[in-house]
């Protein structure tokens, strides 16, 4: 073992991040196919054949449409195009069977118990409404006469920690001070579940 081990290079699929040979078992083989044909043609010989056939089909289609197009030049191509885009959107929605959640504008309020009878109220998501967190923490601290600070949360997102349990009227305070924040987009977290405030 005197020689140094060289790290082996593995070809990972650019679409689903699996090693290319496992794409067929991945969540979305259909979308990987074009990438595979281009980058790992020897792994899936069947695919290449299929792709070639498709290409041939496309060409013949185009030829056909060209032949017809002398009559209805505008109608045929535009309709085929719209069909194409809708298909693409469908594909986008499907990967992994789950839709990636967009960051919705909402304020999440959570109470964390610190020392049995002391607690901290965590306010997340105020920045999504264009509110400056440092200002907000100052205001919160002033209103409730406690310490309030901007803290980096677990996912690099900033949140405001307010000392003490202020859940009872934080909602009112938020809606009063920042009219941009509607009451229905404020949520509490109770027992790990999201509950709408109010």
């Amino acid at each position, binding site marked *: 073992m005197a020689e*140094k*081990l060289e790290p082996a290079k*593995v070809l990972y699929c650019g679409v689903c991040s699996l090693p290319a*040979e496992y794409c067929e*078992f991945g969540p979305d083989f259909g979308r990987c196919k074009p990438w595979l044909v281009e980058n790992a043609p020897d792994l899936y010989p069947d695919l290449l054949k299929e792709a070639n056939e498709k290409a041939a089909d496309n060409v013949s289609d185009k030829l056909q449409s060209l032949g017809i197009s002398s009559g209805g030049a505008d109608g045929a191509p535009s309709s085929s195009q719209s069909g194409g885009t809708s298909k693409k959107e469908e594909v986008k929605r499907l990967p992994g069977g789950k839709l990636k959640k967009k960051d919705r504008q909402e304020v999440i309020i959570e109470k964390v118990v610190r020392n049995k009878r002391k607690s901290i109220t965590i306010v997340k998501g105020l920045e999504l409404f264009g509110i400056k967190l440092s200002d907000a923490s100052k205001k919160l601290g002033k209103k409730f006469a406690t310490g309030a600070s901007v803290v980096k949360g677990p996912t690099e997102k900033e949140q405001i920690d307010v000392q003490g349990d202020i859940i009872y009227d934080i909602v009112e305070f938020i809606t009063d001070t920042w009219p941009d924040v509607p009451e229905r987009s404020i949520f509490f977290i109770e027992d790990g579940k999201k509950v709408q405030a109010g």
Partner: protein
Amino acid sequence: MFKKFSLEEVSSQNQVKTSVQRRIRQSIQDEYPGLETVMEDLLPKKSPLIVVKCPNHLTLVVVNNVPLFFCIRDGPYMPTLRLLHQYPNIMKRFQVDRGAIKFVFSGANIMCPGLTSPGGVLDEEVDAERPVAIYAEGKQHALAIGFTKMSAKDIKSINKGIGVDNMHYLNDGLWKMERLD
């Protein structure tokens, strides 16, 4: 076990003391002697080593924001699949037949029949409760990392039930977490 795993699961991450770092290095090296020559590249003595703690007694060893090893309670350290793909010879190998691949991909544990069938290969020397790499019939790379429930001989003779616990498999939460910031 990493089926659902994301940054939100992280409960604490600490840069550890050099003494702890040394201990981790030592135990990884004992577990995978094949890594000895590249230890310095993987876990440089000088650069900070971060230990990330997650629920269910899970710890990750992270260097330069890349998760490299994980362990459960004080069990053995196991490499992540990305690392194993780079150094495929460090672990004992098991191979499952083709039919099992799709179940492993959804997180199923490795059942004995999948290992003993014609498509499977067992490394006879493996005892119970050891980390193993799971390969698949006709594929070059590992698709999961497992923890044997019984020894290879038992798997062969009993041939029923769970043979290897599936710890970490392709496209699970840890796989998707290429970098941890």
